[in-house]
């Protein structure tokens, strides 16, 4: 650690070596991200300790000045956090978001893996076409892809008509505005995020290893368990995290496909902010969500570094 630290060139050394261009390309994105990515979190953190007030902006300050304007008292309101942990509604919302995101991630992995494997083993022309087919939905509107399911799932929608005409069900099934629709929506919209990292990993895999194992008498499931799966691990981790982390905070899918009892924390935050106008509580909801996601985000960075 000490030796690497010494070799690191500091920003001031960069200036003294009159390398203005280099300093410029480092500082511009750094300052932009500091201002519009990092500092906003500090602001949210700060506001999560204030109280909601009927004012513009609708919260109190954590500093209270005395009459002479010389002394400031720091007053942190822990009430928002206490409220979050005392009210089962919020705890349930966090747990149910993690559950929904977790199960959807697993299903996405189960569907995505064969597709990724298939693409990785195709001929190179075929591979380019299939890859384009996976990437294409990724480019089309997320909102519209969720919307597409509303028409399919509704009571008199295509799926119900098909089920009834095939005689599989007697009456149309309620699918829209249920948890089922939310799982389906997450799996559907996030599938490309799972396939792409899996594909990148599987494509690099040396197939002769599998062949060698099978020559030595391993059954297909054995060579899959002991060779393919371990080699695909970085891709599996990357894919799962790319699906799980944003799915926990998902808003659009539960709002359009979920029912009124589908509890997800992204939706709770939205309602807290837009309907109840309780900015401090919404901030506390965001901070706790962020703390939940810090672990997975760090894991993702570590995994990315190892994979490179």
């Amino acid at each position, binding site marked *: 650690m000490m030796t690497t630290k010494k070799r*690191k*060139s500091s*920003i001031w050394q960069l200036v003294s070596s009159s*390398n203005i*261009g*280099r300093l410029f390309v*480092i500082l*511009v*994105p*750094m300052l*932009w*991200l500091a201002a*519009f*990515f990092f500092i*906003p*979190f500090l*602001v949210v953190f700060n*506001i999560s300790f204030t109280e909601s007030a009927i004012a513009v*902006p609708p919260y109190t300050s954590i500093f209270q000045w005395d009459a002479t304007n010389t002394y400031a008292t720091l007053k942190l309101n822990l009430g928002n956090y206490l409220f979050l942990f005392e009210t089962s509604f919020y705890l349930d919302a966090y747990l149910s978001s993690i559950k929904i995101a977790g199960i959807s991630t697993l299903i996405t992995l189960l569907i995505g893996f*064969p*597709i990724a*494997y*298939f*693409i990785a083993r195709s001929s190179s022309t075929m591979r*380019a076409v299939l890859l*384009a*087919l*996976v990437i294409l*939905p990724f*480019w*089309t*509107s997320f*909102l*519209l*892809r969720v*919307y*597409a*399911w509303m*028409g399919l799932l509704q009571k*008199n*929608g295509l799926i119900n008509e098909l089920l009834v005409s095939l005689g599989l069900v007697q009456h149309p099934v309620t699918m829209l505005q249920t948890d089922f629709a939310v799982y389906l929506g997450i799996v*559907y919209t996030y*599938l490309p995020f799972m396939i792409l990292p899996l594909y990148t990993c599987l494509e690099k895999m040396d197939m002769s290893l599998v062949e060698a194992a099978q020559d030595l008498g391993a059954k297909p499931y054995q060579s899959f368990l002991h060779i393919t799966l371990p080699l695909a691990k970085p891709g599996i981790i990357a894919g799962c995290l*790319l699906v799980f*982390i*944003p799915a926990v*905070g*998902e*808003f*659009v899918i539960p709002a*359009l496909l979920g029912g009124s009892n589908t509890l997800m924390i*992204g939706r709770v*935050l939205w309602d807290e902010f837009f309907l109840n106008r309780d900015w401090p509580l919404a901030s506390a909801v*965001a901070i706790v*969500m962020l703390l939940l*996601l810090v672990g997975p*985000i760090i894991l*993702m*960075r570590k995994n*990315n570094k190892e994979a490179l």
Partner: protein
Amino acid sequence: MRKRSWPLIIMAALGFLFLYLPIVVLIVFSFNESKLVTVWGGWSLKWYASLFSNQEIMDAAWVSLKIAVISASLASVLGTMTGFVLSRIPRFRGKTILSGWAMAPLVMPDVITGLSLLLLFVSMGSLFGWPAERGTTTVVIAHTTFCLAYVAVVVQSRLSTLDETLEEAAMDLGAKPSSLFFLITLPLIMPAIVSGWLLSFTLSLDDLVIASFVSGPGNSTLPMVIFSKVRLGITPEVNALATLMIVAVALSVLIALYIMRRQKRVVG
């Protein structure tokens, strides 16, 4: 040499069917004559006509296009700088922080990004008087920030696969860092920057949550208008709009992929 495994082919085929069927159904039903979305009433273009005469949607589309072009361009410049710095400058203080800040927006839930930026703008407004009100500018800042991350990833991965000997040769021949970048590196990573721009453009055009937080009254973006319409149920006009957007995106992606493949063949 490769064994054809039927279960795998069937699973992959079902997977692709799952990915595309909803989109195909949406497109077909945008040409439906009937107002009832699930009852087929014959082919018709009437929802396209009513879409183009819907002033609210047209205004929002214009706002969204403006925001998307500006954000994608800003994000391309800043994202290229970030990707370049992260892959070509070996060590500097704060590199870990920069790479963390640049990659985290990729997975950050939209509600957190939206809320945090809104609270930043409100605090800045009351501290410095800017931004006095929220609108196009604040949405552009927000979109630039999260699109920057995507451009940085694309550019960084392109740079990491790039043959560094070309850059080294230019340096050996005495090219200044600035001319090295503009004459050698930039042309080589241009396809990545273009695809980063396109990705940013579509992401910005598509964003509902962040825009809802940071946009001001009278500046509703297209996704905000679509969301308020579809919340109440299926609207044939939105089907028509969706079809147009999907076809436009599909065509531009296919063209971009084609160009990139051709360039790859030329560069080798």
